[in-house]
């Protein structure tokens, strides 16, 4: 009790918690779950975008997409490292992902059907991710907060790139504009779902707020995202697939329609169009790569043994 109170006092004083500091088991578990999910999302998120690398429509776009997917792998690496400071190994986390026990962002369970989806993912999905992540740069857990600073910088670059793809399409041929509109139609609602259930239905919200792992509620962040994004879409001359979307002068914010929570839960629970395939792709990569990882270990062991032998011989 005294420990919990002292811990909360550190949090309230905006002190950063560091790996070797004592921390409540719930705090540790919450962070491991959240950082792990976040890392998995980066990894699984490589797949829908990777789907378009070989078909990117110009060399410039191909290079940018390669760089982006590489950045996502990098984010996965920092985040796994941040989680490892809490006493869980990357291997453990990977196994949980592959066993279907750990979650990742549900948005990646939708397929990328056209090139415009690459634009929409950058603009909307990375845009929503940034809304979630900027406050995480001030998260109470030091390693996570520091990882997020780097991640956020790159994400906002990706977001601008995505918007620029949408802009090019929206200003392009009628076919390109249609492609952009279609992508917005398909990605808009899933992007809003990225912020999670309404605050009234959210499981982990309150305690995370007290521990300053989270700093805003799901609904607050969702509203911020809508308010930031709608003018961008209007500037592109695209229409949001929500007849109820309109500016509310009184609230100083956009009103928007009801989210289809049935769809949300269906996708979270495994019923999205790509859930099976995303996990299958990750499992296949992991299984097909087993011999490579084993060989790397075996080689490292041989080297070590040889070094030892040389040292012994020299003595």
């Amino acid at each position, binding site marked *: 009790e005294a420990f919990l109170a002292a811990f909360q006092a550190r949090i309230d004083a905006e002190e950063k918690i560091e790996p070797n500091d004592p921390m409540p088991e719930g705090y540790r578990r919450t962070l491991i779950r959240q950082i792990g999910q976040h890392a998995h999302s980066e*990894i699984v998120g*490589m*797949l829908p975008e*990777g789907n378009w*690398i*070989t*078909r*990117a*429509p*110009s*060399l*410039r*776009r*191909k*290079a940018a997409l*390669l*760089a982006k*997917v*590489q950045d996502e*792998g*990098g984010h*996965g*690496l920092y985040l*796994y490292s941040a989680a490892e400071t809490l006493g869980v190994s*990357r291997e453990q986390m990977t196994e949980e992902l592959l066993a279907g026990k750990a979650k990742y962002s549900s948005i990646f369970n939708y397929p990328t059907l056209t*090139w415009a989806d690459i634009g929409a993912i950058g603009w909307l999905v990375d845009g929503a991710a940034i809304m979630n992540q900027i406050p995480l740069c001030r998260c109470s857990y030091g390693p996570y907060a520091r990882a997020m600073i780097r991640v956020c910088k790159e994400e906002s670059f990706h977001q601008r790139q995505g918007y620029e*793809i949408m802009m*090019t399409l929206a200003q*392009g*041929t009628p*076919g*390109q504009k249609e492609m952009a509109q279609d992508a917005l139609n398909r990605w808009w609602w899933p992007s809003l779902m990225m912020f999670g259930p309404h605050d009234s239905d959210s499981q982990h919200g309150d305690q995370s707020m007290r521990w300053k792992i989270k700093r805003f509620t799901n609904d607050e962040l969702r509203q911020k995202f809508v308010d930031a994004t709608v003018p961008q879409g209007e500037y592109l001359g695209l229409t949001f697939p929500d007849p109820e979307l309109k500016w509310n002068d009184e609230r100083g914010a956009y009103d928007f329609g009801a989210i289809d929570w049935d769809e949300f839960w269906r996708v979270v629970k495994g019923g999205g169009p790509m859930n099976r395939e995303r996990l299958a*792709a990750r499992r*296949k*990569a*992991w299984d*097909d*790569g*087993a*011999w*490579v*990882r*084993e*060989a*790397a270990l*075996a*080689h490292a062991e*041989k080297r070590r043994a040889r070094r030892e032998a040389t040292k012994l011989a020299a003595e």
Partner: protein
Amino acid sequence: MGAAATIDRDTLLTLLLRLADDHLVLGHRLSEWCGHAPMLEEDLAMPNMALDLIGQARALYTYAADVEGKGRTEDDLAYLRLEREYLNCLLVERPNGDFAQTMLRQLYFAAFMEPFWKAAASSTDATVAGIAAKAVKEVAYHIRHAGEWVVRLGDGTEESRRRMEDAIEELAPYLDEIFEDDPVTVQASAAGIAPQPSSLRPAFDRIIGPIFAEAGLTFITPPYSQRGGRKGMHGEAMGFLLADLQHIQRTYPGATW
């Protein structure tokens, strides 16, 4: 290099397209691994190398378009030619196979390009020299990275060793082609623009030799070599690669992306 004979435009264009196509196609192959690598570090390393290759391809296509002088762009050259007009060597278009084959292919190509770019860094053609100066640093990393894997896999487990040996056999027929001289390379070399491919073989061997030695692998000379890429005669996998590569450009002619 050194002598200053001149080169005609078509020959220079051919030289540049060969190089550009090599880089584009190998970059394409590497990028197919994206999200499917054996470990996260390789999900970073492979796009990283692909990015270097695509970057070099862009510089080369841009210059080729310039030399051609017909108003075509880097994308026109990369995306809108027929299969028989792509001039890449067969090595780079070989399907990825397993990770051993991908890394060996990468090592071979990098061990060829490293001395190539070193020589081309003092090209009489300033643009080529500029591209080479940048590329030579990148390719050194490719040699290091792919070379380390060849060592690890060659001197790893029984399975990894067998797979490396299979990869060596699988790629052996496609190696001689990259060292082949022909009137294009003769003229380019006489004009001091780029080295003769055959002249790079000793440097290639000096790179591969120690790596294979450390890996405990034996270099093999195949009974037959395959050629044809430089004349646009590719393998059957090439058409499928191009179908993917070109699909959007072909579907929306004239659009800007």
